[in-house]
């Protein structure tokens, strides 16, 4: 049971890394989701310019791996004199990633609202704006919730990629403990367990919500 002793020794340092991982995940979700909603409206817009910009931001954010976006921001942009601290670069890159994926979920959610709902609102003489935020948005958001929760778990796990740009999050912290103690196996297993301790219960909560939403509609 030697490893338990080692783990107890590594854990405080790793938990401080975890705190940063969770902060990055929180920022990318809290900032990224509203941007994603905006992007989903842009891609559905009648204005050609807005649609083109929206599509480009979404398609690049979803099409290119998050790691490439992080490298582009952290290692690529400084060559043009635009340089960010590693943490800022992680915020920007992962927020972009979250926004791009969230926009697809918002789009699907808004599209799932039956046409009759809009027509009924129009028949009642509601103006386009209230129709959107009192009728379409609440129903659309509801069906987007499970997907957005799943994405939040993905975003949390995705913060491990910030390791690549030297952000001292959980993965980077683990790696430095490993290179100090040469006990890589135990360190990375502990890191995996820490990630799993957050992701697994979060997944179960998501599954619960998913079932509840389906039940209501059925």
């Amino acid at each position: 049971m030697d490893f338990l002793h080692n783990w107890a020794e590594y854990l405080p340092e790793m938990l401080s890394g975890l705190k940063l991982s969770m902060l990055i995940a929180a920022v990318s979700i809290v900032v990224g989701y509203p941007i994603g909603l905006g992007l989903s409206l842009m891609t559905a817009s009648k204005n050609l310019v807005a649609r083109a910009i929206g599509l480009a931001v979404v398609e690049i954010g979803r099409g290119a791996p998050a790691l490439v976006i992080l490298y582009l921001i952290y290692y690529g942009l400084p060559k043009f004199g635009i340089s960010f601290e590693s943490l800022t670069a992680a915020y920007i890159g992962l927020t972009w990633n979250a926004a791009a994926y969230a926009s697809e979920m918002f789009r699907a959610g808004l599209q799932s609202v039956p046409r009759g709902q809009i027509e009924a609102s129009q028949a009642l003489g509601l103006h386009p704006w209230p129709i959107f935020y009192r009728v379409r948005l609440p129903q659309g958001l509801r069906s987007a919730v499970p997907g957005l929760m799943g994405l939040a778990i993905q975003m949390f796990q995705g913060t491990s990629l910030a390791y690549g740009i030297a952000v001292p999050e959980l993965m980077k912290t683990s790696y430095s403990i490993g290179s100090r103690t040469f006990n890589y196996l135990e360190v990375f297993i502990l890191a995996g367990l820490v990630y799993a301790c957050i992701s697994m219960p979060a997944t179960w909560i998501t599954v619960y919500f998913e079932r509840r939403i389906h039940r209501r509609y059925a």
Partner: protein
Amino acid sequence: MDPVTAVLRGVPMTLYLTFGAFVIGAIGGVPLALALRSGTWPVRAISRLVVDFVRGVPIIVWLFVLKFGLAGEGIRFTPLTAGVIGLGLVSAAYLAEIYRGGLQTVPIGQLEAANALGLSRSVTFRRVIAPQAFRIVSPSVATYLMGLLKDSSIASTIIVGEIVFQAQSYARQHPTAVGIIPYVVAGLFYIVLSIPVAYFSRKLDRRMREEIY
């Protein structure tokens, strides 16, 4: 050397990683999916825990355990082997979940009809249930494959010479403004490489719909 050629050298490795892992995952996901739907609850509970655990740990952690963790115990994988095994393991868990969802959509009447006809369990699964489930899951599997293509970029952190690794080393050798190009090129390559997958998936889906109706 120009940046496009430099990044191009990583493409075979990216494809190798992606398809190697996909084959492991597509095959390994089948027994896992069956275990998730097993009638015996301990089998179901254990497989659920395994699948959720594998999915709950980021890919980079799996790769580091396989490459750096096991090296200390005398098990030395090449970066590529570690990459294929790690991505394959994660794919098996994700695909098992996708398969399970597909199996669930096959109406119970199909199973009952097969039983009534006296078909054996394995024939029922292979010839009745699996083909119908496959139709349902094929678009999700294709979406997963496109995600896997992007996730293969994580193998660059364990020094597999794939697209992102090549982009990184080119950028390091070119500290001038040219150094940003390989990253842009790398991003475009992933987008371009996922186009054929999307195309064939749509074609496959359409063909299978035609077969039904």
